[in-house]
């Protein structure tokens, strides 16, 4: 068989002929509608403090920060295969770096947030080479050990409250960047204005992190990451630097997680090692959100966080029982609906609002 007789897809220069051109596509018509709807939703959320009650704003801070953490865990564990049970380490480090920046260095709280992220990223860069020596599932417990060690180290800093923690007085936060502007803009008292400011920061982080992950997964680097997870040896053989891409992802996720931690604790204005490094609050809830919504989808954490919010408002008064219900639900979902609520729905109705799968289709020009 001569080379000429093989039915090759036409190259770019031959597009004028009748031969179909094969093309890898990610977007769909629905995804373009979803993008417009997403922009409208973000604008509406940004304008919400003008009419919303303070309670709703505080609830939405919870929803947005948990959503951001869930998106970050999803890219790390779902796409990257780095199943960390120690992400509370970076929430805690970010929170402690924020408090250290405000109390010890006298920094502006808003300016301290990116520095808190950088600090978390730095520690992640140091821990990464150690923890990556643990294969697959052992990495999970290793990251947990690292988080516990960091919790105990933070408890040693007496100037940051030691084991019992500390508070920042409202006075120290009253000069915060943007606070006066929010007060006059919305006619609020300092405490309520601080919630609004934190809410906007949380919204900004949620949007940037979600868009960043979406763009990353759709890029060739996202493909390289998924390849490293599915088969590291095969990925390396086609030129993917599996170690490097995972390490960079780990650091980037820690950076954003640290900033989320700083934002959360800027609102709480009270910190303790046990709360800031809590495995339940910052990892169990986050894993629950991703599992119930759908691993390896952008929409999954959004659905999951809304379900968690509903369960929290409905069941939180029952304390331990609430966590028993959450845990049981997560196990049942994993057993019978491993793609999560969104994943199952998307499969049944072929809906993808933020598509990350690649389709081989004929080009429109053919």
């Amino acid at each position: 068989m001569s080379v000429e007789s093989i039915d090759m897809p036409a190259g770019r220069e031959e597009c004028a002929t009748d031969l179909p051109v094969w093309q890898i596509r990610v977007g769909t018509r629905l995804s373009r509608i979803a993008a417009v709807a997403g922009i409208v939703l973000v604008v509406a959320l940004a304008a919400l403090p003008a009419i919303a009650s303070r309670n709703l704003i505080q609830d939405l801070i919870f929803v947005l920060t948990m959503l951001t953490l869930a998106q970050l865990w999803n890219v790390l564990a779902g796409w990257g295969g780095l199943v960390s049970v120690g992400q509370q380490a970076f929430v805690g480090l970010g929170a402690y770096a924020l408090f250290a920046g405000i109390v010890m260095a006298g920094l502006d709280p808003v300016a301290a947030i990116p520095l808190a992220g950088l600090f978390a990223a730095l520690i992640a860069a140091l821990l990464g080479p150690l923890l990556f020596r643990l294969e697959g599932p052992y990495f999970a417990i290793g990251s947990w050990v690292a988080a516990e060690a960091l919790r105990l180290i933070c408890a040693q800093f007496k100037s940051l409250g030691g084991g019992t923690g500390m508070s920042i007085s409202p006075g120290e936060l009253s000069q915060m960047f943007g606070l006066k502007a929010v007060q006059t803009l919305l006619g609020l008292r300092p405490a309520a204005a601080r919630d609004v400011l934190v809410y906007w920061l949380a919204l900004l982080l949620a949007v940037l992190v979600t868009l960043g992950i979406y763009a990353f997964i759709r890029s060739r680097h996202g493909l390289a990451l998924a390849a490293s997870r599915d088969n590291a040896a095969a990925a390396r053989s086609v030129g993917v630097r599996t170690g490097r891409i995972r390490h960079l992802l780990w650091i980037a996720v820690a950076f954003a997680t640290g900033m989320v931690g700083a934002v959360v604790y800027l609102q709480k204005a009270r910190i303790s090692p046990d709360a800031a490094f809590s495995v339940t609050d910052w990892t169990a809830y986050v894993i629950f959100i991703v599992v119930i919504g759908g691993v390896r989808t952008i929409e999954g954490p959004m659905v999951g966080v809304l379900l968690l919010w509903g369960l929290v408002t409905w069941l939180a008064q029952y304390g331990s029982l609430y966590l028993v219900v959450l845990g049981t639900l997560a196990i049942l979902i994993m057993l019978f609906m491993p793609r999560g609520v969104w994943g199952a729905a998307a499969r049944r109705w072929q809906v993808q609002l933020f598509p990350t799968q690649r389709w081989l289709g004929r080009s429109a020009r053919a």
Partner: protein
Amino acid sequence: MSGFDTIIEGVLLGGVYALFALGLSLIFGIMRLVNLAHGDLILLAAYLVLSATTALGLPLAAASLLVVAAMFVLGFVLQRLVLERVLGDDILPPLLVTFGLSIVIQNGLLLGYGADSRRLQAGAFESSSVTLASGLSVGLAPLTALVTAIAAVALLQLIFYRTSLGRAFRATADNPAIAQLMGVNERNVYAIAVGLSLAVSVIAAVVFGIRASFDPSIGPARLLYAFEAVIIGGLGSLWGTLAGGIVLGLAQAIGGRINPEWQILAGHLTFLAVLMVRPRGLFPARRT
């Protein structure tokens, strides 16, 4: 003598950690499953023994035997009904299921028993001590813990290398598909392995519950100690796990001697140091 006391204390503490670690090491070795609920299952066993002694009025030994049987059955059923469905190439589902189980057990114990600290009552045994040499006496309970750990490792080694069940374990660990072709019932082997892991955990729970008080929140820390002992000792070797437990116990005892707040931290830092210097552990299995 205080330095020597610290070392003795650390070695004896290591016995308990080795017992925590054996069950974890067992199912990882056979089925590559990392059970994040391991620590909470140890706590569940401790509470079940407590209930059997207080509510049923059984002596500690009889209660322990009863709970060993109960936890073996629980492990068997857990594997058959839950874990079996999620084992596979993807490491995410088994980790998430066992993590969910950890949260369910921990909060279930909190609901059932409350947050108060409890302890297993072993009568005079708790406080009595034996004199090993002049001026050197150790508590009978901690010494029993270490002896039990050594006996448990020896027994598991015997099961692994001298029985047909052990042969099935090793064959399935090496290659489940071929083991199945040779007539090994893979599903049963896995279920027995999980049952055995939980049965060993009961021994760990009893030994621990006599020495120290426990409450529902401390399960995850037991998991971390067990894990550290396994990694420090080196994967794939039960005697290595025992040694890893002792190294961890020593690190905690020495750290705690310097400053009581550093006890746990010293253990974690030793683990990270071992990971840095000898990532395959101090005593890895020769065959890899």
